C-alpha cells in the first residue's frame, strides 16, 4: 500500500449522480383559451388501432418469386399500433413535468481515490468560483423556455407557450411564462421580451446546481396543434415482442400518455455547441461523453480530436491543463449529466 508513484491517477471507480432530474411528462388536452385552468384538462389516453401494413420491408431472396410476392401482398400483415390524439373539441396539448435541480455538482457519488477526489473538488470549485454555473444554467433555462422537450409535438404547432413555476412546499412561489416559438432551437440568444424571465429561471437553476438544497420546478408547456390532431408520447423499446402483433407501444403513466423522463433530460442537456463541427449548422447536441447523437448514429467528439469528455477531464485534472472555457462548460455539463466514468477500462 506504499505509494511509489506520486503522479495523480484517475480513480478506477468514479461515478456521478444526475443533477437535473425530470419526472416523466404527462399529456393533457384542452382549449388554448383555457390555459389558466389547465389543472382541469383531460388526460390524453393511449389507444390501439389496427393498421393494414403494406409489404414495405425488404423481401428475403427466397421471397422474390413473383407468385410468392402476390401471395404476400394478398396477405397484408395485419398489425396494431398505439396512437394518441387530441379529442375533437380540444385544440391544445399540455405536457407537464417537474424538474428537480440537485446541488453538489462535481461531488462524485463514488470515487475510490482520495487524492483524485480532492483534485476534482478543487477543480470544480475553481470553475464555480471563476464562472459560476451561470452559462450552463442559462442554456438549461433556454431549453425549458423554448419547449425543445416537446420534440415532435413542437413541429407544426401554431403557438407554444411554456410556464415555469418555482415550487416550494407544494406551492408555486413564482411563475414565468414564455412564448416558446420565439426562442430558437439553434442558439441560446434570448429575445428582448423574454430576457428578464429567462435570466430569473437561469439564476434559479444555477443556484440549485451550486447550492446545498435542491430546487423544484413545475413545467407546463401548451402546444396549439389543432383539434383532433395526433400527439406524440414516447415509444417503448421492446426487444422481444413474442407473439405480439403490436408494432408500436406508446408510454403511459397510470393511463395517461407520457414522455419518458430520459427523453426530457436529453432535450434539457442539448446545449453543446462547442464540439468541433458545430459550425456546420447542426445546432446544439446533447451533452454526452463522446458527443454521440443516436438519431444520426454519429459521435461528434472523437477521442482522436482530443475534445471528448475523458481526454478533457484527464488533462485538466491530471496534467493541470485547463481546457478553454467553453470546453470547461462542456466538462461540467457531463458531471451534471452523471454516469459511471471509471478508468478501469484502461487498467
Amino acid at each position: 500500500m506504499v505509494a511509489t508513484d506520486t503522479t495523480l491517477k484517475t480513480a478506477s471507480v468514479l461515478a456521478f449522480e444526475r443533477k437535473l432530474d425530470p419526472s416523466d411528462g404527462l399529456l393533457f388536452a384542452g382549449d388554448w383559451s383555457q390555459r389558466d385552468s389547465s389543472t382541469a384538462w383531460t388526460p390524453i389516453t393511449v389507444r390501439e388501432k389496427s393498421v393494414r401494413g403494406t409489404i414495405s420491408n425488404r423481401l428475403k431472396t427466397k421471397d422474390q418469386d413473383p407468385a410468392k410476392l402476390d401471395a404476400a401482398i394478398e396477405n397484408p400483415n395485419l398489425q396494431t399500433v398505439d396512437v394518441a390524439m387530441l379529442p375533437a373539441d380540444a385544440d391544445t396539448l399540455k405536457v407537464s413535468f417537474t424538474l428537480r435541480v440537485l446541488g453538489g455538482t462535481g461531488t462524485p457519488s463514488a470515487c475510490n481515490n482520495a487524492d483524485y477526489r480532492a483534485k476534482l473538488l478543487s477543480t470544480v470549485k475553481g470553475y464555480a468560483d471563476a464562472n459560476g454555473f451561470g452559462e450552463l444554467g442559462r442554456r438549461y433555462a433556454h431549453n425549458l423556455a423554448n419547449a425543445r422537450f416537446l420534440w415532435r409535438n413542437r413541429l407544426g404547432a401554431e403557438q407554444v407557450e411554456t410556464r415555469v413555476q418555482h415550487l416550494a412546499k407544494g406551492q408555486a412561489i413564482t411563475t414565468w411564462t414564455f412564448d416558446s416559438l420565439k426562442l430558437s432551437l439553434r442558439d441560446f440568444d434570448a429575445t428582448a421580451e423574454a430576457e428578464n424571465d429567462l435570466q430569473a429561471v437561469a439564476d434559479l437553476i444555477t443556484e440549485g446546481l451550486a447550492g446545498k438544497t435542491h430546487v423544484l420546478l413545475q413545467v407546463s408547456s401548451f402546444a396549439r396543434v389543432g383539434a383532433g390532431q395526433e400527439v406524440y408520447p414516447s415509444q417503448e423499446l421492446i426487444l422481444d415482442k413474442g407473439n405480439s402483433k403490436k408494432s408500436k407501444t406508446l408510454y403511459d403513466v397510470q393511463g395517461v400518455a407520457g414522455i419518458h423522463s430520459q427523453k426530457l433530460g436529453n432535450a434539457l442537456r442539448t446545449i453543446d455547441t462547442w464540439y468541433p463541427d458545430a459550425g456546420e449548422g447542426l445546432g446544439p447536441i446533447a451533452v454526452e461523453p463522446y458527443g454521440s447523437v443516436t438519431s444520426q448514429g454519429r459521435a461528434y467528439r472523437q477521442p482522436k480530436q482530443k475534445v471528448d469528455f475523458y481526454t478533457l477531464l484527464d488533462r485538466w485534472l491530471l496534467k493541470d491543463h485547463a481546457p478553454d472555457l467553453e470546453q470547461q462548460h462542456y466538462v461540467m455539463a457531463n458531471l451534471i449529466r452523471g454516469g459511471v466514468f471509471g478508468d478501469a477500462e484502461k487498467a
Partner: protein
Amino acid sequence: MSSEDNVPEHRALLVLPHIRVQNANAISSPMTWGFPAITAFTGLMTALERRLGRDAGIALYGIGVVCHRFDAQVTTSGYTRTFHLTRNPVLVDGSSAAIVEEGRAHLDVTLVFDVQLAGAYRGDAERLALAERVADELAGMRLAGGSVMPTLVGPTHWSTRPVLELVPDDDSQLEERRKQFRGLMRRWLPGFALVSRDDLLQTRLAELRADDPKASALDAWLDLSRWNARAVERPAKQDSDQMPTVEWVTDPRPGWIVPIPVGFAALSDLHPPGTIRGARDASTPFRFVETVWSMGQWISPHRIKCLEDLVWVTDHDPEHPSEHTLYRCRNAYRPPAPVPTDLTHDIQH
C-alpha cells in the same frame, strides 16, 4: 440546545406518506423481479440518516414500507413478462451500444421509520419542522436507483404530510402504543405492507422432507413461489353407479406470499481496505457476497399490531463483524396463532 438535548433517546415513529419513485430498479435479485429488494430500503434509511447528520438529533432504527401503487415497465401480454428498455447513446464509432436489460417500475409507497429523538423534539412544532426537513432531504435522494418525485395529485383528502409522533415507550403503556400505531396504520390504506414469512420456508421444507429427505430449502422456496395444482380423485357417492371423478385442485397459499431477497451471505473472507482493485473506496473492508432469499408476504396494514412487526432492520453482529458472514434484513412479523373456541365444532357440521 444543550448537548443532552441532542442525544436521541425518545422513541418515536416517523411516517413519510405517498413517496412517488420513478424508474426504481425492478430486478430485485438474480432470481426475482417486481418490488425492489428490501435492502434498497434499509440502504435508503442509512443514507438518509447520514445526510441528516449526527447533529440532527434523530436516529433511524428500522424502516417499513406500505405499497400503494406499483407500475412495472413490462410487457403484459403473453405468458412471460419482458422489460421495457431504454436506448443508450451510440458508441464512439457511431454504432449502437449493447442493450443492458434493466427492469424499471414506478412506485407509490409510504415509508414508516422506527426512530429515536433528542429531547429538543418534545414539542409538536419542533417535531413537525424536523419531519418536514427529513421529507425534504428524501426528496433529493434516490430509492432503489429511482428518483423521488413530487406526488401526483391524488385523492383530495389523501394526506401526504409527514408525521412524527412520540411513542409511549413505558411498558405500562403497551395498549396506548398499539392504539396509536393502529390509528396511524389505517391512514395508509389502501395499500399493502411487506413483512417477513421466514416461517413458511421452514414449514414447507419440513413438509417436503417428510416425503423426500433430500429436499432442500431451494425446493421449498420454489414450491412456495408458484401455483401447484394436483389431481384429486373424488370417490363416487355411495349407492350410485357413477364413476369416481377427478378434480384438479390448486394448493392454497397462505395469503399474498412472494419470494424475496433478504440480504447477502459471504463468499470470501473480509479483505482489508485498499487491497481489492476496483473497490468503491480504499478505506472500507471488502467482501464478495451472494444474495440470499426467503419468503415475504404483502398484508393489509390494518392487520399489523405493532411497529416492530412492520419495520425491517439490518442485522449484523457488531461484536464480531468480520467473523459474521450473513448480512440480513429482518422483520419481526409472525402470523397470528389461531385461538381454539367452541365454534370450531359448530362450523364443522
